[in-house]
């Protein structure tokens, strides 16, 4: 039992209310309530709308997860909750609920890092993570390359985006092309009929001087503006916009930079395992390109299935279970939510 702790995980850092139940590396339940449709007309996640939805959904989602897993609160070894990074008001709903359960059921509570949880979720699909490993986390809120020496505490950031997150660029380009929010899935679909080499969109921070100063950082603001200029010039000239080609070429530019830098980081640090997580990891081109480049570099690629790449409660439970098994001390009941929690802080 101590090596296979039963943990409930709560995730409310953005627009998904996620509750998972995990025993060791075994996923028992993954319940989700999403407010994404409420945000669609605003073209992005509205923090207050997300927070209201979390409050309405949190208890029913927990009830659903426990029922799915066939366990009761009394059976749990611990409760884990995302303490950051994320939207402050949204995080607080999960943290407050987790504390309520911890006090009422007299269970230890672990306030955990959202990014580390995105890495930990892979253990549910592919078993224990070889350490050190590299992790590429790409979503609407994050784009980071992490070096994972020890999931329980030795995580460091090699680089991250200096402007927009990759997923944010997908959302903005989708809007330019008249595609719905969130932009990732419709761009992926449109790109299937397009030519990724049709338009040469810029690859941010890949010039020789940028590579020296920002070897593992990303920039997606430039490519987004380049797409906007290209599309606008077409429209101004009264020509039709070839949406599939624009989508495919934009997606190629993003996937190219992400995978090139991730594989370069593996080589530089002598790491032979790459984990890719976050909502953008569901992108088919990113997965394909990462697979090809990892094979060429002799790196083992681990990518959880798309449902576990996007935000969910199972990833928080997975990290919580790992922490309990590793003997990490629980958080205190006065643990805060930290919207800017650094990735080096795995538990608060």
């Amino acid at each position: 039992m101590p090596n296979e702790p039963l943990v409930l995980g709560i995730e409310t850092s953005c627009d998904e209310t996620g509750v998972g139940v995990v025993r060791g590396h075994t996923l028992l339940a993954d319940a989700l309530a999403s407010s994404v449709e409420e945000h669609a007309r605003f073209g992005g996640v509205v923090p207050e709308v997300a927070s209201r939805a979390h409050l309405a959904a949190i208890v029913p989602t927990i009830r659903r997860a426990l029922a799915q897993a066939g366990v009761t609160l009394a059976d749990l070894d611990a409760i884990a909750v995302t303490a950051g990074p994320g939207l402050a008001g949204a995080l607080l709903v999960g943290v407050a609920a987790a504390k309520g359960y911890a006090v009422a059921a007299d269970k230890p509570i672990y306030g955990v890092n959202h990014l580390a949880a995105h890495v930990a979720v892979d253990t549910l699909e592919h078993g224990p993570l070889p350490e050190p490993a590299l992790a590429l986390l790409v979503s609407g809120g994050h784009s980071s390359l992490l070096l994972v020496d020890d999931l329980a505490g030795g995580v460091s950031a090699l680089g991250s985006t200096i402007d927009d997150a990759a997923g944010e660029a997908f959302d903005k380009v989708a809007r330019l092309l008249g595609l719905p929010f969130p932009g990732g899935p419709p761009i992926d679909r449109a790109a299937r009929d397009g030519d990724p080499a049709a338009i040469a969109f810029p690859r941010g921070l890949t010039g020789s001087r940028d590579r020296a100063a920002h070897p593992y950082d990303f920039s997606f603001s430039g490519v987004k503006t380049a797409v906007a200029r290209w599309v606008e010039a077409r429209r101004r000239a009264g020509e039709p916009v070839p949406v599939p080609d624009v989508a495919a070429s934009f997606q190629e530019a993003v996937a190219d930079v992400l995978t090139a830098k991730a594989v370069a980081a593996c080589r530089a640090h002598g790491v032979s395992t790459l984990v890719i997580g976050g909502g953008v990891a569901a992108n088919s081109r990113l997965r394909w390109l990462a697979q090809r480049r990892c094979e060429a570099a002799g790196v083992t690629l681990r990518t959880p299935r798309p449902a576990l790449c996007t935000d969910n409660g199972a990833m928080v439970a997975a990290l919580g279970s790992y922490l309990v098994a590793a003997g990490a001390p629980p958080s205190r009941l006065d643990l805060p939510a930290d919207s800017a929690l650094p990735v080096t802080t795995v538990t608060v």
Partner: protein
Amino acid sequence: MLVLGLDTATASTTAAVVEVTADRVVGRAERSAVDPRGHAELLAPQVAAVLAEAGAGPADLRAVVAGTGPGPFTGLRVGLATAAAIGQALGIPTYGVCSLDAIGAHADEHWNGRMLVATDARRGELYWAVYTGGAVRVTEPAVSSPEVVAGEVVRLGVSVAMGEGAHRYADRLRVGVRDEGRYPSAYALVDVAADRVRRAAPGEPLVPRYLRRPDAAAPRPPKPVLPR
């Protein structure tokens, strides 16, 4: 029977263990602390502390009573999420009470005047309601500017005010402000809900009184990026 009360609708975070008997409501332990951004850090330790002071465990609780606001959103949600979680975890009913009512409870039974209860809604506005003797609320809770509330004070014949908001805007409300009851007390919340507790009324989902819509606007069309 023992009842947990809690409120996070104002700058104050408060929790109490209260004993509700057939004819009395007795406070067993109460904690309060004022920190407008501290609800999430303060509340759970307060709950643990009041249980310990009352010599009780979570399993001894028979109901949870939570202040449903109105109040600034982020703090308000901390109390409601915590209360809902405790209620579900213990399988006991949760009851919601308007947080202003916990201050309005100061209006004595034999008094027939009108009392304003006002808390700080930020953005230069107040959450408010008017009470008469026996803590009877005579207006729906609302969010308004101090000038609008001052007009209602005159129109409704209010003679005294209570609450942190009334203190903050005392000069603009032009009504005498009582010093006690600046913030809702968790004990008073349970007192307001005591009848529901006694007759074991069905639990209620804890629905926050936001009184304001989220700040959100539909996006404008993308700005041109090419020179004209």
